[in-house]
């Protein structure tokens, strides 16, 4: 008998960690940008928070939307990478409750004041600490420690959250912690993509009858991560300085360098590899634009940053939602046209958002267009995927299990 109460542990929503978190990711993506667009376009008030509307916007998209995606990905992928048992439903439900409470706590913090802000901070820290507590033993148990970098990324997340709330409670502008979190998310995207791409690119090579010998090798990836980390540190310590510009250019070049791993011939132009590849293109373009703007002293840092956030973060999360979200429901990848259309729309949303910085363009119109594209993509995803994520598995598999091999 199917349990219809979504809060009950027997509900299929709790079959696997990604289910509630990916739904929350897509819902918050569409909802947060709808609110933001309403604020920019019609002056609809946003929840008053420390630092003002821009901090609300960035905080929610990073520590709300992106953190939900990271939590869903980590809870599902890390047990798979390390070959350990799935995370049980009860702690997942607890973590998800913390995520919801975090939204409520931060949104109310302006009205209630410092105590609510402190509680919101503790709730966010609790969510990340919970993830670390659940996943660290698995990552450390792997004798080769191949995936330990995810653990450090989660710990870094906790540090940034603590810093954000410490600054906000002290009355200082907490924006620098959010900018640093964008850098951290970029590193996480590079780490996650290296794992996902091995499967996707090799599957595409296999399909074309070529030998699936694509490997995401560490040296180029590590150079990119070092450059991104260096830029993030420079931006944190000396924002707006030219030194950060050179580091951003270094990051852009290192990301272009990283792309050469992907130059595997025509298989790259299959839809799945190409959509993932576009993430690196957007990331390189974003850092390139930031670097150029800082070195030449021109405008464009915000445009570059939105290529990173709307583009690289948005598209990579969309891809994870589509790949991990399908496979761990026991379904083959969705080969229908809406998936690549959504990816193209997100790419366009990022470019349009960046284009608002150009002189003489109707910036408000472009902002609205970019927001609508973004909202449309995630609404479309929800329409196609929400029934799958909130419904029971129909393939005979259980929990987080991947596609069940019919032959075996």
């Amino acid at each position: 008998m199917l349990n219809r109460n979504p809060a009950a542990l027997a509900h299929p929503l709790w079959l696997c960690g990604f289910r509630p978190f990916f739904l929350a990711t897509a819902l918050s993506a569409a909802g947060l940008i709808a609110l933001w667009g309403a604020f920019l376009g019609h002056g609809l008030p946003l929840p008053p928070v420390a630092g003002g509307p821009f901090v609300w916007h960035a905080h929610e998209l990073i520590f709300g939307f992106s953190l939900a995606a990271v939590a869903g990905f980590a809870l599902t992928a890390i047990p798979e990478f390390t070959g350990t048992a799935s995370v049980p439903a009860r702690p997942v439900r607890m973590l998800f409750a913390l995520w919801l409470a975090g939204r409520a706590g931060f949104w109310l913090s302006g009205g209630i004041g410092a105590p609510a802000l402190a509680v919101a901070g503790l709730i966010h820290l609790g969510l990340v600490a919970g993830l670390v507590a659940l996943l660290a033993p698995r990552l450390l148990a792997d004798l080769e420690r191949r995936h330990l970098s995810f653990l450090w990324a989660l710990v870094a997340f906790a540090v940034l959250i603590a810093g954000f709330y410490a600054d906000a409670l002290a009355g200082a502008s907490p924006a620098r912690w959010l900018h640093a979190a964008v850098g951290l998310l970029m590193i996480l995207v590079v780490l996650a993509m290296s794992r996902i791409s091995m499967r996707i690119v090799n599957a595409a090579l296999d399909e074309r009858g070529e030998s699936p010998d694509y490997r995401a090798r560490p040296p180029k990836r590590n150079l990119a991560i070092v450059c991104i980390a260096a830029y993030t540190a420079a931006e944190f310590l000396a924002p707006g300085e030219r030194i950060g510009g050179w580091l951003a250019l270094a990051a852009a070049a290192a990301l272009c360098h990283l792309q050469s791993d992907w130059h595997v011939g025509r298989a790259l132009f299959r839809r799945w590899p190409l959509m993932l590849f576009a993430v690196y293109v957007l990331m390189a373009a974003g850092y390139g634009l930031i670097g150029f703007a800082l070195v030449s002293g021109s405008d464009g840092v915000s445009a570059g940053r939105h290529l990173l956030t709307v583009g690289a973060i948005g598209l990579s999360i969309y891809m994870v939602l589509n790949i991990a979200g399908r496979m761990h429901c026991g379904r083959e990848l969705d080969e229908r046209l809406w998936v690549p259309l959504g990816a193209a729309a997100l790419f366009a949303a990022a470019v349009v958002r960046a284009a608002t910085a150009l002189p003489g363009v109707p910036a408000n119109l472009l902002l609205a267009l970019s927001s609508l594209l973004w909202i449309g993509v995630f609404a479309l995803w929800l329409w196609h995927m929400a029934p799958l994520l909130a419904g029971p598995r129909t393939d005979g598999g259980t929990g987080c299990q991947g596609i069940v091999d019919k032959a075996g």
Partner: protein
Amino acid sequence: MTLLRAWLAGIPAYLWSGWGAVASLCLLLAAWEGASAVYGALVLPDPGTVFATLAGLVDSGAAWPELAVTARRAATGLLLAIAAGSTLGMLAGISLTASMMSRPLVTVLLGTPPIAWLVLAMLWFGASDGTPVFTVFIACFPVIFVGALQGTRTLDGQLKEMATVFRLPVRMKLFDLYLPHVVSYLFPAWITALGTSWKVVVMAELLSSADGVGAALAVSRSHLDTAATLAWIAAVVVTLLAVEYLLLEPVKRELEGWRRQEREGSAA
């Protein structure tokens, strides 16, 4: 033909691999920018100022004549060294006695600092072009000589015997057996020598000439113009990097690939 096509198809990938170098260079520029912020513009002007100065030198037409003079001297010295070093090195390689005899001499040449040769050259040639050309020649010669010597000495004796047994025509022996092997040693030596020539010529000019990049460096130093000094240095380095990585490195890779195959072949 297929070889040529494969080589041409490899060019985009080679150029794309340059992004790694660009990333490292940008990190260097960031470190430069940071050091400039710490020590001030008098000690170390920031990269932006230096590149602006360099662009000014190029725009005003001051840079090209100096670079051309320097390039001419470096090229003359280098070509002489390549001609003499390659020929003598190969000749010495053919005979065991000659190579035994020449090794200590080469060690002496390699061990003598270029600055010592420069002083001698200034005594012998004065302020003429001869001073930088001779210094470049004498600094590059031993490097090329050793390359040619090794290339000839390491020729596979069994292959030579086989070529004799099968009565290979001289032309075939030369172009398919000896030259590819020797060139795979010679070419890297030429590239090393090119780098040496470019560095040595600037040093020689700095001390002995009235024109060329080295002389321009001497002038900017006497004016305490750090920005112009760095701009000239940047011009020299950028020219060398461009020649090396756009022109010579791809050829070198090709040749070293040939040598690698040969080694793998002999290992198997």
